[in-house]
């Protein structure tokens, strides 16, 4: 097939018009996708484990925020029927001098007891894109979240300063589009050292001999056995082991959804706006392009074309033009989004997510709407006599 047949002559501006509309749709959709993935990721995480902290508040950060969780308490939790594993954790804000606390861009140091498998049912292991995962014997080694590493141009083999200590980067995680993207994972012993260096009060308590190193945990992730109801198990832990802050996964998920209701409404609005802008632009462009050819239709009908002939031709052209415009729009949005993200990623942020489902939807949407708009315009024109069509188009 000749190139001229792939893109019918005289449709360049139509393709540009469609491309602009689709680019708007894809860009807004990519922003909505980014927010959706973040919220879904968070929801998936909290539904995959029971997070436990010591009673009280203020010792840690992130989703294990609460009081100190001693080794004895961790042992008690592990003994509760239905518990499959407990992983002690120390979560610290990377920077205590900024007001990032509990914001979406907060960067965290997460100390993990690597000797225990990750109990989270949805994150059995954190996938490593580069280098290797953290090992039990690692000291002063870290595996970084994708955004954490990208914002500092770090790769496996680099070194990074965490809490005033040098760490070698042994791995970079795959992008998860949620919290771990901004984590620096370290061995729990290293995290305890950083915590002690950072918190003078804790040093005094620890120095008085009332605490052992194993008691220095900001929380723990608890897993459940197959067939166990996580919410029921969380309540059982709460009832069995005193002095704990236990999150109920179902309740936390509900709270998370409530707290992100604004974002959900926002992304719904963004999506609707994208559909409206992109759809109107596309439909208007295609309809205008068909109406511009009203004279051609009159001539073709004078040459013997039936309504069905014209409809078939226009649908074929509409499909091809919409496909070109849709593809160009996707490419345009992707180029702009990638360029913008490359810039903002330096600050550990990402604005767009061009997911496969979004791109497929945008193409199908542009094809369907373009074809419908072309068919509508053709049927309007088909009602005219050939002479009238020629008169109006001349």
């Amino acid at each position, binding site marked *: 097939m000749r190139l001229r047949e792939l893109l*019918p*002559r*005289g449709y360049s501006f139509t393709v540009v018009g469609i491309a602009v509309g689709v680019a708007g749709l894809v860009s807004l959709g990519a922003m909505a996708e980014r927010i959706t993935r973040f919220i879904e990721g968070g929801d998936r995480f909290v539904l995959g484990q029971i997070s436990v902290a010591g009673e009280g508040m203020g010792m840690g950060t992130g989703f294990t925020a609460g009081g100190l969780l001693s080794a004895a308490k961790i042992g008690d939790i592990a003994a509760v029927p239905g518990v499959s594993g407990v992983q002690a954790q120390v979560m610290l804000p990377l920077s205590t001098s900024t007001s990032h606390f509990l914001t979406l861009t907060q960067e965290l140091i997460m100390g993990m007891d690597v000797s225990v498998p990750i109990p989270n049912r949805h994150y059995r292991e954190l996938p490593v894109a580069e280098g290797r995962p953290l090992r039990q014997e690692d000291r002063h080694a870290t595996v970084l979240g994708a955004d954490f590493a990208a914002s500092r141009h770090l790769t496996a083999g680099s070194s990074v300063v965490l809490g005033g200590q040098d760490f070698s980067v042994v791995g970079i995680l795959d992008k998860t589009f949620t919290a771990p993207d901004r984590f620096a994972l370290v061995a729990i012993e290293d995290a305890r050292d950083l915590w002690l260096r950072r918190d003078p009060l804790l040093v005094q308590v620890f120095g008085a001999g009332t605490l052992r190193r194993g008691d220095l945990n900001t929380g723990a992730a608890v897993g459940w056995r197959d067939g166990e109801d996580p919410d029921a198990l969380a309540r059982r832990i709460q009832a069995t082991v005193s002095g704990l802050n236990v999150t109920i996964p179902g309740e936390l998920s509900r709270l998370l959804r409530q707290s992100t209701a604004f974002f959900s409404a926002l992304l719904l609005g963004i999506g609707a706006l994208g559909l409206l802008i992109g759809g109107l632009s596309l439909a208007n462009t295609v309809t205008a392009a068909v109406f511009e050819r009203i*004279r*051609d239709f*009159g*001539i*073709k*009908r*004078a*040459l*013997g*074309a*039936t*309504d*069905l*002939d014209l409809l078939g031709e226009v649908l074929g052209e509409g499909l091809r033009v919409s496909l070109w415009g849709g593809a160009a729009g996707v490419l345009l949005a992707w180029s702009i989004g990638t360029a913008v993200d490359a810039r903002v990623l330096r600050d550990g942020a990402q604005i767009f997510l061009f997911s496969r489902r979004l791109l497929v939807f945008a193409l199908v949407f542009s094809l369907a709407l373009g074809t419908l708009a072309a068919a509508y315009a053709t049927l309007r024109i088909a009602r005219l*006599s*050939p*002479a*009238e069509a*020629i008169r109006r188009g*001349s």
Partner: protein
Amino acid sequence: MTRPLLRAVGLTKTFVGPGGAPVPVLRDIHLEVGSAEFVAVTGSSGSGKTTLLNLLGLLEPVDAGEIWLGEERVSHLGRRAQARVRGASIGYVFQSFLLLSGLTALDNVVLAARYVGRDRAAAQKEALNLLERMGVAHRRDHYPAQLSGGEQQRVAYCRAVLNRPPLVLADEPTGNLDDEHARVILAELRASTEERGAAVVLVTHRPETQVLADRVLRLHAGRLDPGPAVSPA
């Protein structure tokens, strides 16, 4: 005249003017044109010449009256059947050429074959012969905007006769042409009556055109009068 190929009986057409007022354009037109006959229709501007041609060519619906093509009452056929008649039996040559700007000269000609189900390769070969005959074969790959007015009209003529229609309708086909190019088109129209027996109805202002016609009819105030007698060319 032999048995009429084209017969119009009591044709009437009224358009809607400003404010919805009816504007009668054609009233009770009766016309017969035989095979191999060349009929010229004259009249002042606004007399309804183009409307008459549009009705005869099934490009516009009649308000009243009938049009017969051979034994078939074509004015009352359905849309699909009328499309078939237009494609197979009627060739049009318009004053403003009406070529499709997105197609080359050759593709414009071959387009006429598409809607009557002809084999494209055969149609293309015949189209090239026609373009050759009309002296524009060297312009086969040019788009209309790249052609002169005379060349465009010759291409338009090739398109009109590609399917060898028994009836050719020409609406001021020389109106935008210089004398030399006008002569070429008129000679071809005349030849189509003589060589293959087509009936030609030509709307024109040019006196020399009327000389070529077998009959000249005058359209005045929406009615058709026999014009002055002329000798066949």
